[in-house]
């Protein structure tokens, strides 16, 4: 399945359908990365994160600072991701509390990180926005690199799905006490899930910064980046492998449409859609298919 995905997307730029479409699909891949990342802890593990913007932002900002300091692009991106993953340590104490506390804490982590970064810039008298040197790589080669990372992450999640980590997370999501009574160290697995999620989201943030050419805190730390993966996960189907892919596709198209037609009301519309969808089909589109199938099977008997 991943194979055919890779082939389709690898061939795509060769069709030279224009720069606009290239950028749109590149964005789609980025959205897919943050959706699948969120899915690891939020979808499978049931620990909803509302503030992935913090990891996205830190990954992006750190990478930008590194690139500007002449570190190689790929090292910067990786280190950016690792620094984002380091935020995990702040969140560990939160795992002792219930999942809903975790959700709120992630929200404020985002706000706290943005405040911190902006404040540090002011204190050290450096400009807040970091501009990357122009023309580091062509759009096409960037596209292929981002595609490679996307495929890597899809493979990672596929491996995780068969591994103990996601089994543990699924058990924790269903009932943490039962999971613990079987020998699952919930705190440990939640931390691992968070680490992976923050790492991959941070890398996505770094890629984004390279993509647009600058790192602006009010952009990359914006609440939007925390809402997008949540939206994609819920629309597509949480806790499934294909869900985030579908969610990302729908989201990418919807966002373009929204920005074109309602402009500044985009986030508002997304929020309204989110509320409506979570109330009407909380398990996402994937499960609508499952429901139809089940209903059909029932009527056949």
């Amino acid at each position, binding site marked *: 399945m991943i194979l055919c995905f890779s082939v389709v997307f690898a061939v795509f730029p060769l069709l030279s359908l224009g720069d606009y479409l290239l950028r749109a699909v590149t964005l789609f891949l980025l959205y897919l990365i943050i959706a699948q990342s969120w899915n690891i802890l939020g979808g499978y593990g049931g620990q909803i994160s509302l503030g992935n913007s913090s990891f996205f932002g830190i990954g992006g900002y750190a990478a930008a600072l590194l690139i500007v300091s002449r570190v190689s692009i790929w090292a910067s991106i990786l280190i950016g991701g690792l620094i984002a993953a380091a935020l995990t340590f702040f969140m560990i104490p939160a795992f002792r509390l219930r999942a809903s506390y975790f959700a709120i804490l992630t929200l404020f982590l985002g706000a706290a990180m943005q405040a911190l970064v902006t404040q540090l810039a002011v204190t050290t008298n450096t400009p807040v926005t970091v501009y990357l040197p122009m023309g580091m790589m062509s759009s096409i080669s960037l596209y292929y690199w981002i595609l490679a990372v996307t495929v890597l992450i899809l493979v990672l999640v596929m491996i995780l799905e068969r591994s103990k980590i996601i*089994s543990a997370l*699924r*058990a924790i999501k269903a009932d943490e006490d*039962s999971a613990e*009574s*079987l*020998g*699952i160290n919930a705190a440990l697995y939640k931390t691992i899930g968070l680490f992976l999620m923050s790492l991959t989201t941070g890398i996505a943030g770094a890629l984004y910064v390279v993509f647009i050419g600058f790192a602006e805190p009010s952009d990359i730390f914006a609440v939007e980046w925390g809402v997008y993966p949540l939206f994609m996960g819920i629309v597509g189907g949480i806790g499934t492998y294909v869900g985030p892919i579908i969610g990302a596709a729908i989201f990418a198209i919807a966002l373009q449409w929204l920005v074109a037609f309602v402009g500044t009301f985009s986030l508002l519309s997304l929020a309204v859609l989110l509320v409506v969808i979570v109330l009407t089909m909380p398990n996402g589109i994937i499960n609508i298919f499952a429901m139809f199938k089940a209903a059909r099977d029932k009527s056949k008997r």
Partner: protein
Amino acid sequence: MSLVCQNVTKRFGGLNAVSGFDGSFAAGAITGIIGPNGSGKSVLINVMSGYYKPEEGKITFDQKDITGWNSHSVAKSGIVRTFQHMRPLMKGTVIENVALGALFGRDSSSAKTAISEAHRICEEMGLTGLLSKSSDTLTTYERKKVEIARAVAAKPRVLMLDEVMAGLNPAEVQDFVKMIKSLRDNRKVTIIVVEHILSAVMSLCERVIVLFNGKKIAEGLPQEIVQDMRVIEVYLGRGLANVTG
């Protein structure tokens, strides 16, 4: 295997849910814990399994002091319990759920081995028809069986079943009694059963402990317990106890 509780006390805001409990559970035996509602049975199980930490006392398992250990550490060392109130099962098939025990319990297995272990256990417990059924489509009877199978998959040395027969009809209760007995016989696991259904306790348990208001008030063979004045008093009240005496 040895499991010993010494002077275990669990307090909640000034109220003793369990007071000074002393007990030792013989290897390979099926011990019952009974008592009226609120007598502390589930609390005791929670303490022994690491879900609660006792304010006083010591729990020793195989000469190791496990007092204050986390639930998952206790489970990994070989004490596995089921919960009184039905907890949600993981979304997935029955076989996936049962395999969880094998994946994470004592001597945990790899993903592949866990599945085959789960198959074996399900066969033993009569769950073969349900293997690929989704966990949210099970009846109460099936669910409880899956919970027990899952716990068994974790290779327990001690299995603690907390009111596992609540909500079952008499035929199902009998079935469970047989199943629990054969589990013990086949695997040499020590079983502790917290139960309300006295008929089950009588036919299942070799030894019975009676709790009342957090304290142990009697311990002995089932036949002895049923005739013990203090026990009757506690269940029926002093007046009636005088009548039946």
